[in-house]
């Protein structure tokens, strides 16, 4: 059984999915993942490079911060996943954090938030 603290860290779309599901949680989770279309391997490589290079303009190539805050695993330890994903997707008004929805899907934003919270992957050597 999934406990509530984890549930509260899922994005809103999952919460909605759960509410509308009359079947078991497990099925819902599977359905959600299919629905959200997590980025494939090629897209993941693009996203890794994008985060390192373009987000890196403000957050640093090593994500240790700059004009934008640090995005290391340690720095994000107490941040809720859903607010991270929505900040990436929709921006944060009043700050320089832009909405990236013109370049990212919600699933991309969620995937990036998950990777950041787990410690962002290094770029692959061949991709430079």
């Amino acid at each position, binding site marked *: 059984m999934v406990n509530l603290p984890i549930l509260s860290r899922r994005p809103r779309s999952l919460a909605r999915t759960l509410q509308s599901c009359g079947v078991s949680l497990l099925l819902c989770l599977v359905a959600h993942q299919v629905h959200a279309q997590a980025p494939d391997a090629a897209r993941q490589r693009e996203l890794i490079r994008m985060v390192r*290079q373009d987000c890196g*303009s403000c957050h*640093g*190539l090593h994500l*240790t911060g*700059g*004009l934008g805050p640090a995005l290391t695993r340690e720095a994000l330890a107490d941040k809720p996943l859903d607010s991270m994903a929505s900040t990436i997707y929709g921006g944060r008004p009043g700050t320089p954090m832009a909405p990236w929805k013109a*370049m990212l899907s919600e699933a991309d934003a969620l995937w990036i938030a998950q990777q950041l919270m787990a410690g962002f992957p290094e770029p692959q050597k061949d991709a*430079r």
Partner: protein
Amino acid sequence: MKRRDCLALLGASSLLLAGCASTGPAPSLVGTGDLGVVVARSTGTLAIVNTSQRKLLAEVKGLGDLSHASVVFSRDARYAYVFGRDGALTKVDLLTQRIAGRVMQAGNSIGGAISADGSLVVAQNYTPGGIKAFDTATLELVADVPAEFEPGRLSRVVGLVDLPGRRFAYSLFDADAIWITDLSNPARPVTTKLPNIGRQPYDALVTPNGRHYIAGLFGEDGLAMVDLWEEKPQVRRILAGYGRGQEPLPVYKMPHLRGWAVAGRRAYLPAIGRHEVLVVDTDTWQEVGRIPVAGQPVFVMARPDGRQVWVNFSVPDYHRVQVIDTTTQKIVRTLEPGKAVLHMEFTPRGESVWISSRDDHRVSVIDTQTFATQATMTVDSPSGIFFTSRAARVGF
């Protein structure tokens, strides 16, 4: 004495010629006026380049985190001072092609400036927020000015420029302020503080005559300008409300103002959240035009003679570079030199421009008259390009 050292020292002093001659044929002396550096940011490497030969001379490794690295040059144009994101200040000798000194001076740094007399190199830091001045010869810390705008609160510092008289102007992103610090006696820094300049200054420039300091504002439409020749400098708003209430477009990368784009009596400035270059008359400081461009401008740079202004853009439009003719205020050329154009640097008199294309790992040299590509070089994820002619220019 090792032969390489001889070679290097020969660049500095012909007196050593006799001492080195015994180890082999005497190498030729070289100057530094046509040298420069290209930052290879993902590998922490600085490439030394020659702009006459249009080629890479050497790579200097071990400079740490060079994302957003910037460079100033010693007054004799022999040394490059490199400010790394990780807070390192590295002094690189362009003649020996080696690191001549290195200090970790902050946790997170963004750039720096050098005094007109060449004695002080000053870093602007995000963490801890403030500026620090170092002896250019020894890299010894000689002054530390925290940007403490409220008790216990330090602001991130942006837009640091050198002013005559060992003074430095900079902006406080978190405090909506411009500070001018007089380091004529580094042991006793004297800081003039100008508050309430407008919300979130993100970068600044000083005009080529050293008179006007202009800070771009992220938090509102307009720029903050200070006439430094006034007895008591004060802040004036210019180009207020240039967005005219329209919803701003997303800003995926902050524009850079450093490196003036003043051509004749006009200044060319990037609009924030608009795909426009703003044109302002530097006598009246009134807007005299705006030029629609291909994306959010990042660098808006005048060719040294002021005839052209070159513009590059933030993601996702950063495969393009546009050229404005300053006699007509029209775009005369749109170039596509490569993927993810991050920076442009003119040769000293502007006959060529060097452009870095990060995702193509390429530096292109382009003729500014014909727009023909004169040379290309392979550099790993190139970002900033800096030529030694900056040593002789205010605000570079």
